[in-house]
């Protein structure tokens, strides 16, 4: 049986096609999900892609979080379904309170677009088990509001519980607290990531192919489940 990974398209999503492509290259079947459709069409996992859903109106991810498809995704995520939020998807996960903290305007006020080096800190989540802890990867990063903030108590808890999935190396591009590029929930099935692994899955178009591991990880997780 082929593993089915849903990719949600919100009005204003940009990277849904690239995420679908990454899912296919990883060996799973991508399934397009529509924001107004509550039905997840029997997918085994979901990717919330990057972009500017609802034009980033109100706050990034704030309106998408209340879309019909998110009701089902939030419910299923709480039951253990793997969910990866990339960039705007990470913002949606924070607005949904599936992940703590919030993503705010970059401290430089500039939109940053660069190939970013990361260190994988937690290689035990549903989306990172094909990496090893401490592994360094380079994937594209592109955001205007990617600065992860949370209060000290939450940051200390994330550190203590090993819930920081990836940190920025060399340069902190947006002023994220404690160089945080990605975090996970306590169960390890929900991961939010500001950089874009789906843009680093093919040599022709990516700086590396080191982003593919996120998508092969979830496949392995689901096959072994």
């Amino acid at each position: 049986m082929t593993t089915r990974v849903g990719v949600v398209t919100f009005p204003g999503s940009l990277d849904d096609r690239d995420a679908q492509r990454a899912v296919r290259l990883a060996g799973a079947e991508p399934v397009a999900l529509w924001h107004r459709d509550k039905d997840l069409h029997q997918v085994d996992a979901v990717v919330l892609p990057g972009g500017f859903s609802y034009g980033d109106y109100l706050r990034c991810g704030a309106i998408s979080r209340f879309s019909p498809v998110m009701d089902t995704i939030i419910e299923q995520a709480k039951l253990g379904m793997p969910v990866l939020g990339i960039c705007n998807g990470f913002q949606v996960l924070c607005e949904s309170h599936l992940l703590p903290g919030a993503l705010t305007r970059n401290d430089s006020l500039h939109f940053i677009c660069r190939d970013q080096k990361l260190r994988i800190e937690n290689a035990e989540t549903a989306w990172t088990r094909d990496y090893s802890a401490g592994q360094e990867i380079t994937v594209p990063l592109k955001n205007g509001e990617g600065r992860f903030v949370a209060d000290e108590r939450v940051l200390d808890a994330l550190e203590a519980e090993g819930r920081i999935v990836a940190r920025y190396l060399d340069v902190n591009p947006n002023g994220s607290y404690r160089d945080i590029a990605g975090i996970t929930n306590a169960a390890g099935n929900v991961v939010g990531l500001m950089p874009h692994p789906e843009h680093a899955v093919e040599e022709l178009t990516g700086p590396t192919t080191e982003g593919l591991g996120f998508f092969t990880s979830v496949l392995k997780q689901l096959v072994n489940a």
Partner: protein
Amino acid sequence: MARVVVDVMLKPEILDPQGQAVQRALPRLGFTGIADVRQGKRFELELEGPVDDAALARIREAAETFLANTVIEDFTVRIEEDGK
């Protein structure tokens, strides 16, 4: 028609780079003596019915769940009287 205003501001401990950029620009334009600037959002809600306790409670709920992200923002709700 009754109007309720919801003001949303970043919490004091959250860096406001937009406010900082505005503050830095002010002296260049000759507006001196401004020590700090914080930028927020103002929502004007026109109600169909009267502003009673029930309506205000619903607006507070909307502000709490939707208009503000209480992880990073505080909000206030106030009634704006006619003619003001």
